[in-house]
């Protein structure tokens, strides 16, 4: 038996012994996730227990180094762990922007002190993070951001406004892009971390066309940020941000995958059989679904072996999000007038139309489709021009 097979066997045994039965039930809604943080109220003792045993093994972040609270697993071992978790139906023990976004950036750009300080807390789910990037005037053109940190010797005083900060009202800390030099557009931004309870920080939830949302507007009014809370060099925060955006993009393009992409015609068989033109569109859409899954599989295989173009995730983000929007247009067509109900219990309080409307943001958040196409044209296809 190879080492990997031994690892698989042991992992499976450990998961069977340690993952509470309740944590193996399918996730029913976003509410079922565990986000951790200072103010987190566990939904059940099982949720708490599962996070604790996993964090103790470093398996909330299995491929991070052990000294920072990770599991120290190799890429192959990490894949085995995920596969075995999937087989048993184990829930992800911790949802976290700290794990998905900030952690990788700290691992790459953080000082040794920062890594030792922040990463283990992230791994144990003790700090909940939010991201401060976009501003009302800086959407696709992120680098035009205006939030300004004035140098006051040992600290900055930050003033400005962020938008689209997910769960800002629930987060403990923020990682935030702040202008620290007004002269240089690109090399005038720094990547700062600070506590959301700092005086001068306020948040306001954003209501979307689909209803309530995790997004907030976040306002900074003379917020004091100590200088040691910068990640990377002064004025070079754009490098950190770009690195991190890459991670976000992969996450979002991956979001189009999963069980949501099964045959749409099979899911709405009766409608397909009654409506020949709808059926034809579902048939063509099923083809695109299978294509996207195969494409994602190939991309991941090529990515892992370093064969994929560094900008390829932009292409996948474009395709995946446009496809998901189209899918929900078809779901709405299949649902007919039933799917128009916005508040009724029968319509699960508008679950279908709200999901449909929510998908419209897929091709905007994390880089618009237009920006993705620009990037693909310029970086992959090497089209001329600025």
């Amino acid at each position, binding site marked *: 038996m190879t080492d990997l097979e031994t690892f698989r066997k042991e992992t499976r045994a450990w998961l069977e012994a340690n993952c509470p039965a309740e944590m193996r039930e399918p996730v029913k809604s976003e509410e079922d996730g565990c986000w951790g943080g200072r103010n987190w109220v566990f939904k059940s003792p099982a949720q708490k227990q599962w996070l604790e045993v996993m964090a103790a093994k470093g398996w909330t972040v299995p491929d991070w180094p052990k000294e920072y609270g990770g599991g120290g697993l190799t890429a192959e071992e990490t894949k085995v762990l995920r596969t075995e978790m999937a087989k048993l139906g184990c829930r992800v023990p911790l949802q976290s922007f700290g794990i998905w976004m900030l952690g990788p950036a700290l691992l790459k750009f953080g000082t040794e002190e920062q890594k030792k300080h922040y990463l283990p807390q992230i791994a144990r789910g003790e700090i909940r993070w939010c991201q401060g990037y976009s501003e009302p005037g800086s959407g696709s053109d992120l680098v035009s951001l205006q939030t300004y940190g004035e140098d006051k010797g040992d600290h900055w005083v930050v003033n400005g406004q962020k938008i689209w900060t997910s769960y800002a009202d629930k987060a403990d800390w923020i990682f935030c892009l702040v202008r620290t030099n007004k002269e240089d557009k690109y090399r005038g931004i720094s990547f700062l971390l600070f506590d959301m309870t700092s005086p001068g920080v306020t948040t306001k939830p954003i209501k979307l*066309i689909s209803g309530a949302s995790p997004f907030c507007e976040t306002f900074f009014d003379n917020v004091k940020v100590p200088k040691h809370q910068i990640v990377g060099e002064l004025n070079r925060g754009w490098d950190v941000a770009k690195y991190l955006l890459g991670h976000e993009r992969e996450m979002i393009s991956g979001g189009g995958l999963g069980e949501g992409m099964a045959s749409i015609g099979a899911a709405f068989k009766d409608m397909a059989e009654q*409506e020949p033109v709808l059926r034809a569109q579902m048939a063509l859409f099923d083809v695109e679904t299978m294509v996207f899954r195969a494409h994602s599989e190939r991309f991941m295989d090529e990515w892992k072996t370093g064969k994929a173009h560094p900008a390829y995730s932009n292409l996948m983000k474009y395709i995946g999000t446009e496809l998901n929007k189209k899918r929900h247009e078809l779901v709405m067509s299949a649902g007919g007038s039933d799917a128009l*109900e*916005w*508040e009724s219990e029968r319509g699960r309080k508008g679950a279908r*139309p709200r999901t449909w*409307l929510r998908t*419209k943001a897929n091709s905007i958040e994390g880089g618009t489709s237009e920006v993705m196409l620009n990037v693909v044209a310029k970086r992959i296809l090497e089209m001329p021009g600025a």
Partner: protein
Amino acid sequence: MGMNHTDDQVMLKDTVAPFLAENAPVKHLRSLRDANDQTGFARDLWKQFAEMGFTGILVPEAEGGLGLGHVEAGIVLEEIGRNLTPSPFLTTAVAAVEALKSAGAHLRGEWFPKILSGDAIIGIAVDEGAKHRPAATALVAERAGNGFKLSGKKQFVVHGHVADMLIVSARTAGAPGDEQGITLFAVPRDAAGVTTEADRLVDSQLAARVTLDGVEVTADAVIGDVDGGWASLTRLLDAGRIGAAAEMVGVGGGAMDMTFGYLKQRKQFGQLIGEFQALQHRAAHLYGEMEGARSIVLKAQHLLDDGDPRAELFVAAAKAKSGLACNLAVREGVQMHGGIGMTDEYDIGLYMKRDRALAEFFGDTNFHADRVARMNGY
């Protein structure tokens, strides 16, 4: 004149457009919605519609109306669409009026005056499933005495919960799927055995699921011919379909204009986003689609008004195309607005919601494209 508006039509538009822009702009919809209004529209606005004569556009002159046509009704509906005005105009003053034109003197005498005065709301109770399939009518009307007894369910009856009367398609012979054997009835909403359950829809209007449990009506309640109601139903539906299509020309046009305005105002990367050629080309394409929709809707209105036998085919094409074009307009609208387009605070999302509801109303693009194929013999 051909497809140009006549002077009278231009004058009507010049009356309707400022009236709605002033009295029922998008914020009117917002205020009803945010107040959790349970009617679905403003009754005083409906009274004003009547006073302005709008509710009588399709009512024959001999019966006190203006005796105008679908082109004129479409002018009102386009502005309703552009302003997202919640209104029973389409159901009551267009679809119901056309159906009542094939009713007897009794029903006409009762309902035309109330429609003209803005005192009646009429609901169209045709759909029984999630998709529009009028021939699939299964709601049963059995003969009982010299009248009928109706039992069954309808859904997507817009304004049905506050309607004074419901026009109900019922099966008096044949089986679901047959065009023959359907009869159309005028059923008072307060008749014994009628229950309605109102649901707020994605576009903030209210529609009802209606249950008829042994509802007794007299023979006077029949609109058109017993078992041969398909003709009257078709008349009702064609009016409703071209009306919904006209409203979508307004919805799509409103979304498009708002979006083009945004392209000329929003800056990113140091320039107006409307300067980006990729967006310019998409804008030009969208404009062409909306212009095409406007044209086929107008053509179908003319054919309906002329009593041309091709009207049904063109109405189907018009509903199909307005669905495609308006959907493109709202999708491009949200995408080109970017993040703020996703917020409830901006109006563009409301256009997307209204588009969705109108897309389903009286049959969607797929349904009507299929009908075009069938009418073309394949």
